[in-house]
């Protein structure tokens, strides 16, 4: 059964990645611009046209579209992601360092959003229709609808006025003192044993992470609120009460537990939304990230980089979906992988 699950997952993942590659290549193909020109280094002079011709051949852009598509996909699946046309650096390098920067924000955001959301959502469910519940409901409605980039700009300016420095990923004074291992300043500063740098990096990551967490937080609150109040009417919850199991313990073990699979599934999807959110917010806070890298790659038809970034993002998705599935399985014994 496990084998079948893994097999299914792998096949599905390959299909998704194939789809991403094919679709992005099609889009790039129909977009105006000449990748060969960028690749060869914007040549000038009498040899320019010839050089571009050579580059077109090198990149295989003269071949029929379906052959190009075939070559691009096979190249990506053989883990030869190639070199960014614009930056001349390996795509994997750029994609991974962008992803690490984004994940810094994203992971902290979800680490904040999920437990806090569960707590607040549970309170709302337990005191359904109370004033507090209504307040929470209104607040989450506002949070879900709020324009995050606006909030981001506002937050940044307010923090600035309060003399809290949150621009960029780490203070410039710390930057040279840290040896880069993982690419995440938060982790690398700890590895370098620089607690002060760690705190600085964390301080700078928190505001964007908090902003990114608003949406998943509001969503978690809502899901928990609705499904928990459903579960509180569930036969086995009432049965547990009858057995004399009471209070928060009963809620936790007999109601909340069954909310987690739903939550895990929805969070797996929400990450997609948050990735878009992250891109906007990161640019306000002067951080690096996948979204920003993508914005820099697209106008140049830097298709290896575009595809690389999208593939990395899809892999991140697939991982989050799989994690959601595994969480579901761990919590609910009736689901078999």
């Amino acid at each position: 059964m496990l084998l079948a699950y893994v097999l299914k997952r792998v096949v599905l993942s390959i299909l998704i990645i194939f789809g991403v590659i094919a679709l992005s290549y099609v889009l790039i193909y129909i977009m105006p611009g000449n990748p060969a020109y960028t690749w060869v280094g914007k040549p000038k002079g009498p040899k320019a046209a010839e050089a571009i011709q050579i580059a077109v051949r090198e990149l295989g852009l003269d071949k029929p579209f379906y052959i190009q598509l075939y070559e691009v996909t096979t190249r990506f699946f053989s883990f030869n992601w190639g070199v960014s046309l614009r930056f001349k650096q390996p795509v994997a390098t750029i994609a991974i360092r962008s992803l690490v920067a984004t994940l810094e924000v994203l992971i902290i955001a979800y680490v904040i959003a999920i437990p806090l959301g569960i707590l607040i959502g549970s309170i709302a469910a337990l005191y359904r229709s109370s004033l507090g519940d209504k307040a929470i409901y209104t607040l989450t409605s506002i949070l879900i609808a709020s324009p995050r980039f606006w909030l981001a700009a506002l937050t940044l300016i307010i923090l600035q006025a309060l003399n809290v420095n949150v621009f960029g990923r780490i203070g410039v004074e710390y930057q040279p003192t840290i040896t880069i291992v993982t690419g995440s300043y938060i982790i690398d500063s700890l590895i370098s044993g620089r607690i002060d740098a760690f705190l600085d990096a964390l301080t700078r990551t928190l505001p964007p992470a908090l902003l990114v967490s608003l949406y998943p937080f509001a969503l978690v609150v809502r899901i928990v609120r609705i499904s928990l109040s459903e579960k509180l009417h569930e036969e086995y919850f009432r049965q547990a009460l009858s057995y004399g199991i009471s209070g928060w313990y009963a809620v936790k073990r007999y109601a909340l537990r069954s909310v987690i699979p739903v939550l895990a599934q929805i969070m797996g999807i929400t990450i997609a939304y948050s990735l878009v959110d992250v891109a906007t917010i990161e640019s306000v806070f002067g951080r690096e990230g996948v979204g920003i890298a993508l914005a820099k790659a697209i106008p140049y038809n830097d298709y290896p980089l575009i595809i690389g970034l999208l593939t990395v993002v899809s892999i991140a998705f697939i991982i989050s979906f799989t994690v959601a599935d595994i969480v579901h399985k761990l919590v609910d014994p009736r689901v078999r992988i």
Partner: protein
Amino acid sequence: MDINSESIVKAEGLSIGYETDEGILWAVKEVSFEVPKTSVFCIVGESGSGKTTLGNAISGLLPPYVLTQGYLVVDNIVVINNDKNNLKAARGIAVRIPQNPSSALNPYLKVRALFEDVMKSKAKNVSKAEVREAIVKYLSIMQLDEEVLELYPYQLSGGMAQRVAIALALAAKPRIIVADEPTSNLDAYLRSSVGSLLKRLIEFGITVIVITHDIVFASHVCNYIVVMYGGRVVEVGKVEEVLSQPLHPYTMLLIEAATLKKVFTNSMRVSAIEGVGESGCVYKSKCPYRVNTCQAVPLLKYVSKTHGVACWRAVT
């Protein structure tokens, strides 16, 4: 209010209702009865008779927004005192056995964890060994193997799940077990086995309250019987008395219908608008013997020490 030391549950003028758009809907109306200690006590009625609400009141499972009147005392605890209620106090003392055991056991936990949760809620400082010992004891009472402990509820058959639910109820060390339609989801041959299991619980000093629509099942299991209709108690008494000498027309109908002896064609032509009357005897619209006096609510009158009936015909 005084409580007979011989009874463990006492209801007096108990009404339970809910607020709806059309005003208050009383599911249980002015019900009075006493449940003798260590007896099997049946509440019989069809759906909508208020029997499940009554069972939930005894086991403390009414929702917080419920409206109450009258008194309900469970094991010397005043659970309902007019509009004040302390429903939580009854939980763990009067334990409900679910109608559908497979949906009433937490699907996310193994049977062992369910046992541990129940036992820990009763006594905080029990050692692991004690817990294990107790679990084994309850399982053996219910003729279950220890293997079930490692199973999840979805892996149990209906009969096994029912017995696990009863074993869990025992682990909660209750004074009362309320069995709500314990057989409705079971195959015929399992019904009799559940019935005999329930009867055995008396040996542990537990009072069993069985809620059922099946008067035949009730007659095989119970010592006492309360027949409810339209939220009211229409007849009460020892099982022999009620079965051999049913006084209320509804009780008679129940017995005859259950044994499929007679067909009541005269009760069939009931139009959709006619239902349970707003005033008067709850059964008047279906009663073959109805007379003018049925416009008033008959009080429960005792014809013997234990046998009571709420019917004008029986009284006059």
